[in-house]
């Protein structure tokens, strides 16, 4: 894949910069960070969680985490997945959603809870998602998306700061 690495772009690194080169000393990190993104956000077979739902979940997390670069990235993924303007607007805010379908609204509410207050999750919430038609696999996929973007935001923020210090 020749397009720029997403974490490099979000952290403002070019691959030939000192911190871009530093990352390549840990090639396994780079490869499986990218691989995780791809299987979660743009999988060949999205199975029970549509590409729109996946990108919407990721955009919600990046928005809650106030990362402009990753929010822009996931907004673009959501657009490419074919989401309408109302869905993009609903996913790209950090407050309660009104404009989405009941299923997407429930997904985004769950995603926001996992992102901001993982300790307040309960079995009853997973039961409610299953009653909306989400299979255990789908719920695991959503948890992995939130967990991954939470990771990605912090890797990008940390590397951005490290690169600023190295340049200064």
């Amino acid at each position, binding site marked *: 894949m020749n397009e720029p690495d997403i974490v490099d772009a979000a952290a403002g690194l070019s691959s030939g910069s*000192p*911190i871009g080169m*530093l*990352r390549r*000393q*840990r090639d*396994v*990190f780079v490869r*499986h*960070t990218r*691989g*995780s993104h791809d*299987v*979660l956000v743009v*999988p060949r077979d999205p199975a029970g969680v549509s590409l729109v739902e996946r990108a919407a979940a990721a955009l919600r997390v990046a928005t809650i*985490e*106030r*990362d402009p670069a990753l929010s822009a990235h996931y907004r673009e993924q959501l657009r490419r997945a074919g989401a309408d303007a109302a869905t993009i607007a609903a996913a790209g805010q950090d407050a309660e959603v009104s404009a989405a379908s009941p299923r997407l609204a429930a997904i985004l509410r769950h995603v926001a*809870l*996992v*992102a901001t207050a*993982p*300790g*307040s*999750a309960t*079995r009853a919430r*997973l039961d409610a998602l*299953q009653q909306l038609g989400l*299979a*255990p*696999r789908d*719920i*695991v*996929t959503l*948890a*992995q998306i*939130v*967990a*991954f973007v*939470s*990771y*990605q*935001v*912090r*890797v990008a*923020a*940390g*590397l*951005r*700061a*490290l690169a*600023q*210090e*190295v340049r*200064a």
Partner: protein
Amino acid sequence: MSKPNFTLEAVEWAAWMPTVEAATATPRQLAALDASPQRDSPYFLTLAHDVDSLEQRSPLFHAVMYAPRGLPRADRELATVVVSIINGCVYCSSVHARRFAELTKQPEIIQRLYNEGLGTALQPRQRAIVDFAAKLTRSPQEIGAADMAPLREVGMDDLQIHDLIHAVAMFANANRLMQTLGEPIPPG
């Protein structure tokens, strides 16, 4: 929500949804489970529902925690315990507190973090790791070049800081999976 009961004792974890059963798992699920730290744990048997993501996450997690050189393992474990305390992940903190104690023979450092909070008195290197891990966990967008200074003062080079960032970030990930797909079973 009651206050989490952090412990240095072993904690079990129970899934909130039916797990993948070894008897009916696909070959890919079995291979991904074999590449995980504990193939029979309900946690990995839950993650195996989405085998595509588990196939990527296991090697990432393993490299972040165990890749050679760079940040010493005990420092990575300390950072992950700090993140787990902030997020309230009793299971994660127990596992990695025990690893830290095995590596350093200093369980009392963890016990003080549990009892007195993250502000407890620490050696300068541990203080710098705890403060950085706490800030990157709570306020990633407020991390800046100035936050590198305490890490440099205790001798960290670029690769060590790179590894510290990833250990902290990996537990933003791990805690959210552990805390939202099941619950800890406290030691009996």
